C-alpha cells in the first residue's frame, strides 16, 4: 500500500479506537516511511538491483568496509 493510503487507514483506525493523540505521531511516522521508501538502497524489481549504482557497489563483497568484524 502507498504511504498515503497507509496513513489514511491508520488515522481512521486511531480515531475509531479513541486514540486521537496518535494522529500527529502517525503523520510523523508517515514522513519517515516515505523517506525510507525513497532510499537508494531499496531494490527495484523492474530494473533489478538497487536504485542507486553506488548502493549496488556497496553491497558487493570486497568493497570498502564489507567483511570487517
Amino acid at each position, binding site marked *: 500500500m502507498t504511504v498515503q493510503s497507509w496513513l489514511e487507514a491508520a488515522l481512521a483506525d486511531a480515531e475509531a479506537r479513541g486514540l486521537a493523540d496518535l494522529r500527529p505521531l502517525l503523520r510523523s511516522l508517515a514522513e519517515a516511511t516515505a523517506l525510507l521508501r525513497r532510499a537508494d*538502497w531499496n531494490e527495484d524489481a523492474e530494473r533489478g538491483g538497487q536504485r542507486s549504482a553506488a548502493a549496488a557497489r556497496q553491497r558487493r563483497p570486497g568493497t570498502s568496509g564489507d567483511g570487517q568484524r
Partner: protein
Amino acid sequence: MDNADLPAVSIGELATRIRSGRVSAADATEACLEKIARDNPGLNAFITVLADEARAQARQSDQELSAGRDRGPLHGVPVSLKDLIDVRGVPTTAASRVRGGHVASRDATVVTRLREAGAVLIGKCNLHEFAFGTTSEDSAFGPVRNPIDPSRSAGGSSGGSAAAVATGMAFASIGTDTGGSIRIPAAACGCVGLKPSYGEIPCDGVVPLSRSLDHVGPLARSVDDAWLVYHAIAGTPAVAPLAMRDRTAPSSLRLGLAEPYFCEVLDEEVRSAFEAERARLERAGARIVHVEVPHAHEIASIYLHIQLPEASAYHASVLERRPGDYTRSVRLRLELGRYVLAEDYLRALEGREVLRREVDAALEGCDALLLPTLPIPAPRLGASAVALGGRNEPVRGLMLRLTQLFDLTGHPAVTLPCSRTASLMPCGFQLVGRRDQTTGLLEIARACENR
C-alpha cells in the same frame, strides 16, 4: 580516618583504601546510603533502595577480604542497577504500573557477574518507563531530576543511574542503551557512559525494549571506573586496571570527525563546548580527519522502523489487556509501532546494513570517531520541543539524533564529559570504535578524557 570525600572517590581509590584498611566496604556502603537518604528525595534516582541487603553484602565483602579472598577491584564497591535488570527476590518495576507485583526469580547474568566480582548492589534506579524514552520523566514513580539543575531532565532512559553516579549515591551503575539510553543521561548528568559492542554483554534477565538494538553497559565517573565495571559484566574481571596498561598517547590518535549531519544541528553552547574539546585534543597532538556517513539523514527513519515494531511486539498482549497501565506517551508510541508494515521493517533492516558498512568505512582511516553526544543540554522537565536554529525541534528526536546510529550498527560508543556549557550544564563528547573492539575504544577514551 577522614573519608568525608568517600562518595566522590574513584573505584580504584576506594579499592586502595579498603585494602589499606583506611575504609571498609561497610563504610563505603553506609556513605552511599547516607547520600541516597539526603539526595534521593530531591532527585528521585532510586525506585528501590536495597539497604539491608547491601549492608549484608558489604559485611560479607569485608569478611572475605580479611580472610584473604580478594575478588578484584569491585570487591565491596556499591553499584546500582537500572530497574530493568532482574535481581533475585527484588521487584523489577521497569518504572511501570504494568509490572506491579513482579518479583524477579533469578539474577540477570550481569548481576551474577557483579556478585562474583564482589560488588555491593545498593539499589534499583528509576528510568523512563520500559526504557522507552530519552528523559526519564515518564515513570510510574515520577521523573528523575538532573543533579545540576533539578528543573531539568536527567536524560534517559537510564536517568536514575546517571543521577546516582554523578552525585555519589553509587560508585557506578548498570544501564541499558537502545537508542542512546546510557550515553544520553551520562552526558546530561556529566559522567561517563559506555555502550559496548552489540551482543557483548548478555541481556538475559533484562527487560527488553528492542532486542536487535538493546545493549547493557556501565555508567561511571571516569573511564578507569567504566573499564573495571565493563570487564566485570563482560565476565573478564581479572583484567588489569586501565591505568596499569601501556598508555595510549593522544598524539598517536587519528580521530574521525563526521561534520555533515552530526555537527549541523547543535545548541550553540554545546557547539562551543564540543569545539573546545576538539581543540584540546588537537593541542595534545591528536589528528582530526574528516569522514562522512553518506546515509546519515536516513538514520532516524531506519531506527524508527526497527525500534517501534520490535518494542510493540513485546508489549502487544499487555497493550491490549491493560493499556491504561502505561504512561500516556509510552502507550502511544507502543501503539504506533503496531502500524509499521513488515515491508518497511525489512527496508529498515537493509538500511541498517548500509549504515553499518558506512561506519566501518569511516573508521578505516582513524582510530575512533569523534562527535558530540547530545545536541542540546538537558531539557527542562515537561518540554516536548526546544527552540534550535530558529525552529521548534521535538526533544525526543534531538536527544536520539547523535547516539542511535551506533545502536543500529552495534559499534561500541562511549560518552565522556566536556567542560560545562556557558550555562554550566553538563554535556558530553562521544568516541566510537570498531565493532567488537570495546577494549581498544576504552584505551582511546582514557587518552582523550579531560581529567
